[in-house]
Structure formats: structure tokens, C-alpha cells
């Protein structure tokens, strides 16, 4: 017997089908209706009917020019160059316009990154749940979405504020950008509707579309949500990259190409890749902090086990996404150098070069925190005792590399100090301040971080295949040879050959690191197929480890703010590089101290907003008891 709910569902389904048919019909006949509206009963179009009388075209004679066409030729608009605003053309509000836009744009980027990334890995986790038939994955994916749901509203509100601030404070620039990207802006707005539709159907339809074929429908909604989100991201990226490396316009800013040509500038794809990977790492770190917050705020062993597992998964996502990020950053910088050597030098050789030292400190913090969390997590299983002796060596390599990476090439010294030192470069530390040393350091840090990750993954398994010693022998050999190769090419080509070989050798180092990662994942994939599983005790992890999960998003947020400042500042005194000059009162690269304060302010603001987001996600599950119920129960 069909239940009332089932019948309702059927009725809704039939209604949907009818609506779908009507929509298809409307879409199919609309173009014909539009054309028909332009054609009269005599078969002539409106243009033909209103054509002037008296224009006779004699067969074989000269072509008579239609006045309409003549008028159109006269009215052909003059090509418009990029605006050249003067200082008076920038409305002021008493506070630095750049500071206002800086804070709002950075906040929008933080939340945008979060809400674009979370659905990406939520979809993968949900799919894992389908394949493993483990409902815990499904519940965790749903909870991740719950956290980020508030983030969507915050992103939209801040995005609207940013648009208003830009139009009010930089009207000429925005007018020009509107002219260059034309109809793309409307597509961008339309995509928000599309994304919202898929977001709400995906989130609120979670339990209604949980099993069987309906689950696949739900996964499709998630895929379409991600499709819309990714498209929004790449469209917005094209504006930033157009301002850095304009395309589709001539040197005066006159539009010479299509919107597509303006979009596909030389830096577009490097930025797309870099932001895509970074967003996933950032999103993983933020939801990891939520898991840590929940873990620390409960004593219930069941809940602690759940949030421990959630924290582990988040850290796994953040670190896995973080490993290839330096390579995407490397590609971006290489493309910046290829586009404009001056721009590259501004970024890495001038005032902004010091920020790469701060960047090294932050990346070092992320790697140390990520590794520490993995080492702490190994205590969940007894099998980890086999690998714990390696931790001290990994830690030593990480610390030495961290110190090498953050060693500056030049020091800020007084005349007396320079005299004592015998020059501006220290004899031993000087060589560690240049790129070859830093390339060695970063690659070794990534290799040993992957080793921590691999040991963690192995700690609850015992391989049962007969060829396990051979596979392990290969794995050890790959690690040792790869690390030696990274050091060899870094030292030899970096210090003893010419610059071209020095730059080329960094690609060899990247390739060596990638070989370790790919070989590690492949060998372990086969080696532990059907392996003996040792018990893991989720929740049996130190509280201290959870603070590493708080350190990760803060370092990520600060890092994103810092590198955003570098990316934007390389344009120096241009709104659109070499095409439209910035004549506002803020048309200079702000000092590092000022930028540091601004980035810190935005990071604190973001953390406060994230705490609000966590709080909202938390109270959605809280139900106030009916007044008097507690007394009644007690009695």
C-alpha cells in the first residue's frame, strides 16, 4: 500500500515533469516567436517594410547604396581608449579608498575561496561514501556543507559591498572594465542564480536523495554546483589577470579583440590553477579548525571519535592540496617573468622580495603544523611504533630546511655592521639566501612531509603480499636517491653553472619530488591491497594536536592575504598594467609594515567571521527544552 508521503512525492514528480515539458516547449518556440514578431503577414520583415521608396536597383547597373547603411557608416563609433582619470576623478570618503577596497576584496576572496572549495571535496567524500557503502562519509560530507552554508551568504554580502565600493571609489576603472568584459558581467550575475539553485537543492535535498538512483541525482547536483562555482571563479580571475597582463586591447586600451581574447591573457590559466589548488587547501584547513573546535568542546567519546576523524580528513585534504601548490606558484611566477621581466623583478627582486621570506615562515608553519598533526595522529594505532623512530629525522630535516628557506639574501645592516661583516652578504649565510638553496629546502620539506603522510597511512596496516620487501626496498631507494638528486642539481647547477641551467634545474627538482609522491601513492596502493588492518582508535589523540588544526587556517589566511598583496602590487602605479594609469592618491606600493598591518587586520576579521560561522552551524542543532519540562522530569 502506497503511503501518503509516497503519493505526495509522485504528485510532485509528475508536476516537475509537466513543468519541465513546458520549459522545453518555451525554449524551443521562443526563437521562432521572436523571428515571427519581426515578419508581417506579407512575408516582409520590419526592415524591408520600412525601407525608403524610390531606390531602384537596375539589373546589371551599379549597386545603389542604401541610406540606412550609409547612416550606419557615418555613426560608426570612434574607438575608445582607456580612460585617463585625474586625481579629482577619484571620489574620496575621508579614508584611503585603497584600504577600503583592500579589506572588502580580501574578505570576499577568503570566503569565496572557502565556499568554492568545500563543495569540491564534499562531492569527493560523498562519492567515497557511495563506493565504500560507509554512511559515515555521507554524514561527514553533509556536516562540511552545513558549515560552509553560512559562508555563501557572507560571500554574497561582501561581494555586493565590494562591487558598490569599486563603483563608488574607482568609477573610471570600473567603466573601462565594464566596456572590456561587456556581456560577461551579466553571465557572471546569472551564474550566481545557477550556483544558488544547485547549492540549495544539493544541501536541502541531501536526505531526500540519499539512496539508490536518487543518490546519483544528488551527486549530479553536487557536480553542477561545482561546475557553476568553478566558472564563477575563472571569470573573476580573468579580471585580475587582465589588470596584470592585459590582452584583447591595444597599447592605448582600445578594445581590439573579443571578450574571450580579453579573458585568456597569459596569466589566466596559471592563476586559475594556483587558486583552484590553494582554495582546496584553504577550505580543508578551515573545516579542520571546526572539527578541532568541536573535538575540544566535548567529552563524549563517540563525538570525539567523530570529530577526530573529521579533523584528520580535513588535514589530509589541506596537506594533499598544499603539496603541489608551490609548483603551481612556480608556473605563475615563470609566466609573470615571461610576460614582463620588470614585473617579475618587482615581485621577487625589489621591495616585495622580503615578503617571500615572510612567505617562507608561513609555509614552514603550515608544514610543521601539518607534520606535527600527522605524528600525533599516529598514536591512534599500535602499528605506528614501527615508524616512530623516523619522526626525529623528519623533524630535523624540516627545521634545517625551514631555516634555510627563511634566510634572507641581504640583511638590513648599519654601516658598522657591514664593515664588521666585510660586506652586505654573510660568508656562510649569503649563499643560503638565493634561490638554489631555497629550492632545495622547499623540495626536501615537501618530500619529508609526504613521508610523514605515508608513514601515517601505513601505521594501521601490515602488508601481506610476498613482494613487500622488494616494494619497500624500492620505496627507500626512491626517497634517498630523490633527495640526493634534489641536493645535487640544486648545488651543482645552482652555484657552479650558468643562470639558464640554474633555472632549468629547478624543474628537475620538482620532477624528483613528484616522482616520490606518485611512486609512493602507486606502490602503497598495490602493496596494501587486502592488507591486514590494525585497529585504529579514533578520538585517542592529544588535545595539543588539535591546536595544529587551528594554526593551519590562520597561517593559510595570512599567507593568502600576503601573496594577494604581492600579486596586486606588481602592477605598481597602473590600474591596468601599461594601459590605464592609476592617478589616485594611493598609486604607489604600500610599505611592508603598512601591508603587514592590513593583512593582519583582514586575517583577524576573517577569523571572527569564521567563528560566527561555526557558532551558527553549532546552534542549528541545539533545541531549547520546553519551559517547565526539566522540572517535570526531575519530579
Amino acid at each position, binding site marked *: 500500500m502506497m503511503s501518503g508521503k509516497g503519493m505526495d512525492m509522485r504528485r510532485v514528480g509528475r508536476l516537475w515533469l509537466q513543468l519541465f515539458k513546458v520549459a522545453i516547449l518555451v525554449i524551443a518556440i521562443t526563437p521562432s516567436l521572436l523571428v515571427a514578431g519581426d515578419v508581417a503577414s506579407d512575408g516582409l520583415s520590419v526592415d524591408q517594410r520600412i525601407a525608403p521608396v524610390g531606390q531602384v536597383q537596375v539589373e546589371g547597373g551599379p549597386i545603389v547604396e542604401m541610406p540606412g547603411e550609409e547612416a550606419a557608416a557615418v555613426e560608426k563609433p570612434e574607438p575608445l581608449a582607456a580612460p585617463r582619470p585625474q586625481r579629482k576623478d577619484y571620489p574620496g570618503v575621508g579614508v584611503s579608498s585603497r584600504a577600503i577596497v583592500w579589506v572588502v576584496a580580501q574578505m570576499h576572496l577568503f570566503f569565496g575561496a572557502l565556499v568554492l572549495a568545500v563543495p569540491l571535496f564534499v562531492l569527493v567524500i560523498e562519492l567515497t561514501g557511495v563506493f565504500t557503502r560507509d554512511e559515515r562519509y555521507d554524514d561527514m560530507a553533509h556536516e562540511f556543507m552545513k558549515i560552509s552554508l553560512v559562508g555563501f551568504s557572507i560571500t554574497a554580502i561582501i561581494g555586493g559591498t565590494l562591487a558598490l565600493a569599486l563603483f563608488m571609489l574607482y568609477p573610471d576603472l570600473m567603466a573601462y572594465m565594464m566596456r572590456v568584459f561587456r556581456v560577461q558581467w551579466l553571465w557572471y550575475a546569472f551564474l550566481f542564480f545557477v550556483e544558488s539553485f544547485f547549492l540549495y537543492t544539493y544541501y536541502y535535498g541531501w536526505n531526500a536523495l540519499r539512496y539508490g538512483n536518487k543518490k546519483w541525482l544528488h551527486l549530479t547536483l553536487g557536480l553542477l554546483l561545482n561546475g557553476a562555482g568553478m566558472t564563477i571563479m575563472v571569470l573573476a580571475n580573468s579580471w585580475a589577470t587582465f589588470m596584470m597582463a592585459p590582452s584583447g586591447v591595444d597599447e592605448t586600451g582600445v578594445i581590439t579583440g573579443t571578450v574571450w581574447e580579453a579573458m585568456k591573457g597569459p596569466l589566466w590559466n596559471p592563476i586559475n590553477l594556483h587558486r583552484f589548488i590553494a582554495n582546496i587547501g584553504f577550505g580543508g584547513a578551515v573545516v579542520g579548525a571546526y572539527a578541532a573546535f568541536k573535538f575540544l568542546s566535548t567529552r563524549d567519546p563517540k563525538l570525539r571519535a567523530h570529530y577526530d576523524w573529521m579533523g584528520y580528513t580535513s588535514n589530509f585534504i589541506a596537506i594533499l592540496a598544499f603539496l603541489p601548490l608551490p609548483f603551481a606558484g612556480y608556473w605563475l611566477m615563470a609566466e609573470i617573468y615571461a610576460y614582463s621581466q620588470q614585473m617579475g623583478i618587482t615581485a621577487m627582486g625589489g621591495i616585495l622580495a622580503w615578503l617571500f621570506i615572510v612567505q617562507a615562515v608561513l609555509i614552514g608553519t603550515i608544514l610543521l603544523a601539518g607534520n606535527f598533526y600527522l605524528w600525533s595522529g599516529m598514536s591512534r594505532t599500535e602499528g605506528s611504533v614501527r615508524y616512530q623512530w623516523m619522526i626525529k629525522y623528519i623533524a630535523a630535516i624540516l627545521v634545517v630546511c625551514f631555516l634555510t628557506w627563511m634566510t634572507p639574501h641581504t640583511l638590513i645592516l648599519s654601516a658598522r655592521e657591514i664593515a664588521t661583516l666585510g660586506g652586505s652578504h654573510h660568508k656562510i649565510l649569503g649563499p643560503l639566501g638565493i634561490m638554489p638553496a631555497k629550492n632545495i629546502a622547499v623540495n626536501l620539506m615537501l618530500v619529508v612531509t609526504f613521508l610523514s603522510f605515508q608513514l601515517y597511512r601505513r601505521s594501521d596496516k601490515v602488508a601481506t603480499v610476498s613482494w613487500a*620487501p*622488494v616494494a619497500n*626496498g*624500492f620505496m*627507500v*631507494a*626512491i626517497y*634517498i*636517491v*630523490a633527495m640526493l*638528486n634534489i641536493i645535487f*642539481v640544486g648545488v*651543482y*647547477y645552482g652555484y657552479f*653553472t*650558468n643562470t*639558464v*641551467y640554474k633555472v*632549468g*634545474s629547478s*624543474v*628537475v627538482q620538482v*620532477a*624528483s619530488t613528484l*616522482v616520490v609522491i606518485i611512486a609512493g601513492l602507486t606502490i602503497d596502493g598495490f602493496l596494501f591491497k587486502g592488507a591486514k588492518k590494525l585497529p585504529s582508535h579514533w578520538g585517542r589523540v592529544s588535545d595539543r594536536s588539535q591546536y595544529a588544526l587551528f594554526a593551519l587556517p590562520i597561517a593559510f589566511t595570512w599567507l593568502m592575504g600576503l601573496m594577494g598583496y604581492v600579486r596586486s602590487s606588481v602592477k605598481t602605479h597602473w590600474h591596468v598594467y601599461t594601459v590605464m594609469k592609476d592617478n589616485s592618491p594611493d598609486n604607489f606600493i604600500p610599505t611592508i609594515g603598512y601591508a603587514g598591518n592590513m593583512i593582519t587586520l583582514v586575517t583577524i576579521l576573517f577569523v571572527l567571521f569564521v567563528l560566527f560561522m561555526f557558532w551558527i552551524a553549532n546552534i542549528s542543532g541545539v533545541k531549547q527544552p520546553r519551559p517547565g519540562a526539566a522540572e517535570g522530569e526531575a519530579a
Partner: protein
Amino acid sequence: MAEGRKAMQEKRMGRGATLVAVMVAFVVVLAVFYGLDHLVMGIQGLPLNPDLSPAG
């Protein structure tokens, strides 16, 4: 007693086999990375001599 000696011998042989496997693995991996250096530098138009010094 004899069983214990046999087990020890098997363990030693196992260790020996593992050592050989590790040595073979090292040789193979060294060859792979040597080829990788030539390949990656060559793709970038930076040829190397057999001793890995720049050929350009």
C-alpha cells in the same frame, strides 16, 4: 635445536634476499633519476653530457 638453527638460517637468507632486492632497487632508481635529469633538462633545451655537466 635443529629447527631453531633452520629458522635462523631462513631468516638470514631472507635478510640476504632483502639486501639484494634493496641493492637492485638502488641501481634501478639511480638509473631512472639519471634518465630523468637528462630528459627534463633536454626538454627545456638544456642538454647534458653523460657526466651531467652542461653540454650547451
